[in-house]
């Protein structure tokens, strides 16, 4: 995970977790305190609603009582109930007038048989028998809910019965108020409060009642109602026979206050969270950019630092830790560049010396055959002058070969970096010529044991000549004055490579000498350059060949070179 991502996550956690804990704590405190207050308010609402119902009941009772007090003094009424035909219309209209003057929504006067003598809410219902209504209300002994018949359909009323006596006749006066959503509104004293009256037959509510909700508290979809109070009210059913059944006035809060508050807290919490997270992310992004940006610049600069390249300032101008680090890196790079410069200078000096020694070595190697031939010619001139021409002719090729070698060597050095020109090289020919050109003392013999039909090696003849020249010269020089033998053998290895073995019977090498035999400038000879075997190893590697050495002190050394053939075996 990147440094910047870690920084972002850390910032987010550092802001969200404390905020979530704060919101949780606030919600918990609110809930605890509000539940207590809520319960008190609910009890208060229930008490007030019950008092309201009782108050309505008392109002109805008071209005009926006032009518029963006035009616005995109404002469036209008396005449009408006595059967006076001319006052009949007065009686029929009396209830309507009385209803309007008292504010009742229903009023009917009935005789002891239950015959309706006058009806205010249904004027033309007179003479209909309805004994169950006053009888049932009398049984209730208080206000009851009842469905009252009206011309445009029945309605629910909160009604009660009173009676009056005129002479020997007794009359029942049934009066009440219509119970509908408007009536129930007076019980809903707060916003969000729904008042419902639930009877076995219907549900009246201040909320919209759908048919499926009849008989239960109307609830808004997705909302859990909080029932604040339930007040029992008797319901008089007069469908078949009058009987009282319970109904209830249910006061609910469509959106519970607590849930409302919690919802508000949640909403503000979410808003705060979004703002805080956005701010935190922006801040984290800015800070991480401030922090990781210079680091990325440092990384980029570090990756482009070159000891040979121009000097670059990584982060100049900052005075913080990153600036210090940048300055340290700049200082380190400066020191490294200085060290590298010194090293290059030393290498150049060493290389020049090496080159001089290499040239010296190569020239000496090239001059040795010439010197040997010249010594031989001098010896012949002194001892056998008449053979001089023949010997010269015999050794002329050696001279020419050596001169050619030196010439080629000179051209290569002229190019500083000699190039290898690959091709088929007759290794046996080089070995034969080398064996012939190598002047040795009388006790030392250079022999060849060459394989027949040996394919050419894939390489440069000059390079192969230098390899063998160095190996043979080392072998000859390892043989002391008592004499010995140097053998140049060629063969094919099992894997098809051309194998060249140069073995001597010289003094051999110790294990320590063998470990450093191929190191540059390592030599055990007083006048040696220490480059012979290292050159051999480098040239062999350049030809994609391999080289190994076996040596034992006092028993000689064997170098085995394997070169790739020119044609696949």
């Amino acid at each position, binding site marked *: 995970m990147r440094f910047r991502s870690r920084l972002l996550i850390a910032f987010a956690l550092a802001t969200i977790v404390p905020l979530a804990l704060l919101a949780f704590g606030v919600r918990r405190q609110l809930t605890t305190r509000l539940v207590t207050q809520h319960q008190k308010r609910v009890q208060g609402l229930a008490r007030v609603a019950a008092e309201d119902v009782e108050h309505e009941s008392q109002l109805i009772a008071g209005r009926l009582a006032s009518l029963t007090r006035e009616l005995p003094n109404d002469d036209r009424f008396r005449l009408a109930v006595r059967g006076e035909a001319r006052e*009949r*219309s007065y009686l*029929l*209209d009396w209830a309507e007038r009385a209803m309007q003057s008292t504010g009742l929504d229903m009023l009917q006067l009935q005789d002891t048989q239950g015959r309706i003598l006058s009806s205010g809410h*249904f*004027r*033309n*219902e*007179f003479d*209909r028998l309805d004994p169950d209504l006053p009888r049932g209300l009398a049984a209730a002994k208080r206000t009851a809910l009842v469905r009252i018949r009206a*011309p*445009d*359909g029945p309605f629910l009323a909160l009604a009660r019965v009173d009676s009056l006596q005129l002479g020997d006749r007794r009359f029942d006066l049934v009066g009440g108020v219509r119970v509908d959503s408007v009536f129930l509104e007076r019980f809903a004293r707060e916003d969000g409060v729904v008042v419902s009256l639930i009877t076995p037959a219907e549900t009246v509510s201040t909320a919209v009642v759908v048919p499926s909700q009849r008989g239960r508290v109307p609830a808004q979809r997705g909302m859990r109602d909080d029932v604040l109070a339930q007040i029992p009210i008797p319901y008089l059913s007069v469908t078949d026979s009058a009987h009282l059944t319970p109904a209830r006035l249910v006061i609910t809060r469509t959106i519970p206050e607590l849930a409302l508050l919690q919802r508000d807290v949640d909403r503000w919490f979410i808003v705060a969270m979004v703002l805080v997270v956005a701010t935190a992310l922006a801040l984290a992004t800015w800070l991480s950019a401030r922090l990781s940006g210079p680091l990325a610049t440092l990384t980029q600069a570090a990756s482009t630092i070159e000891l040979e390249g121009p000097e670059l300032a990584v982060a100049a101008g900052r005075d913080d830790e990153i600036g210090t680090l940048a300055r340290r890196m700049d200082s380190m790079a400066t020191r490294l560049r200085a060290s590298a410069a010194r090293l290059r200078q030393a290498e150049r000096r060493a290389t020049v010396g090496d080159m001089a020694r290499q040239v010296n070595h190569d020239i000496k190697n090239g001059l040795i055959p010439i010197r040997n031939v010249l010594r031989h010619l001098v010896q012949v001139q002194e001892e056998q002058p008449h053979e001089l021409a023949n010997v010269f002719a015999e050794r002329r090729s050696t001279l020419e070969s050596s001169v050619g070698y030196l010439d080629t060597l000179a051209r290569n050095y002229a190019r500083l970096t000699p190039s290898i020109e690959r091709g088929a090289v007759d290794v046996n020919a080089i070995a034969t010529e080398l064996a012939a050109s190598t002047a040795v003392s009388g006790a030392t013999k250079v022999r060849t044991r060459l394989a027949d039909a040996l394919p050419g090696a894939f390489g440069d003849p000059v390079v192969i000549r230098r390899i063998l020249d160095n190996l043979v010269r080392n072998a000859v020089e390892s043989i002391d004055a008592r004499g010995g033998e140097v053998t140049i053998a060629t063969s094919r290895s099992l894997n098809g490579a051309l194998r060249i073995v140069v073995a001597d019977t010289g003094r051999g090498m110790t294990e320590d000498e063998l470990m450093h035999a191929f190191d540059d400038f390592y030599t055990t000879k007083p006048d040696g350059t220490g480059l012979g075997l290292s050159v051999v190893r480098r040239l062999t590697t350049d030809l994609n060949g391999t080289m190994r050495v076996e040596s034992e002190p006092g028993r000689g050394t064997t170098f085995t070179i394997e070169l790739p053939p020119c044609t696949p075996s």
Partner: protein
Amino acid sequence: MRRVGLVSSIVVVAIATFLTGACGGSRSNVALPVGATCALDTARATVDSASVVVTSPIDPRNAPRPTTWGERFAFDLAYETFFRVDCGGKTLGAAPYRIRDLGFFKLLLEPVGDVVGPRIALRSATEAQARDLIDAGVDLVLTDSPALAAYAATQPDAMSIPLGWDRTWVVVTSRQAALGLDSSAVFRSGLARDVVRANARPAQGPYWWSDLTGCGMPPEASASTSRGSARVAYSRDEPVARALAERLVALAGGGTTAVGLAPDVFASALKGRTELAYVMPLPRRSLDHCRAVGDLLAATPWLSRMPDVHGVITPLIDTRLDAVYKRGRLNLAFTWDSTVTVLPRRP
């Protein structure tokens, strides 16, 4: 609001076709009240302006087809399409007034042509408003409320006179059994006496709608059927219809209810036969039987498919208006349909 009144339409058409019927020799069962004179007040009126109150809705937008008896009274004075005929069958000439709508249920009837006057301020009022206007002094009160007529008659120089029985209130239903209708005379008497607050009597025949045949009316092509409603409908502008409907509902019991509809809605419901029953007035008289039948069938096309009209149209009560006028203020005359009209002064 545009209102359509079946009864008034029938009356309008009947009046408009009076001369046609008379001249064309078509059948007429009208029995005009014949007396020594049709003049209501013989005094020569000299007032230049008079005030008239009617306890019936008047909407000038319904002109020239009246939908209420109040509009019939007003439009009769103001539109030449009406041939005014007195109770003796004598034509009273063209309409002498034009109508100006003053708003708030006030109309001003202004004399036209060579008519001298008087100018008539016509008010449509409720009973309570009418009492206030009476107290302020009016020249003519036309009402269907006996109580109001009695109150108006208490004015100085006031004369109260009941007009002729001009309307029969019927219940129209093809499901009399569902309504539990009682067609007895006792029942009708009870309705007239106790149910309506109008000058009423039990309906008395003969009825011109007893025979809907013989006029060449084609039967309804696609008869509508009642949709099983349990409502007794009435026009909400008619208190008498409401009282009758509520009484029918009270006696029917069960889930039957009464519903007051706007006049145009009532007309649509009647034509579409969407309710259980309809309480409405029909004119007591018709000058042209076939035109009256035609209008009735236009309003209730499904009647033409009924085998017995007596099983569908049940007469309940007859009603009439009361006219209370101040003597010597207006020239009034009885008209052929048992109402009154104002006669202008001529130069």
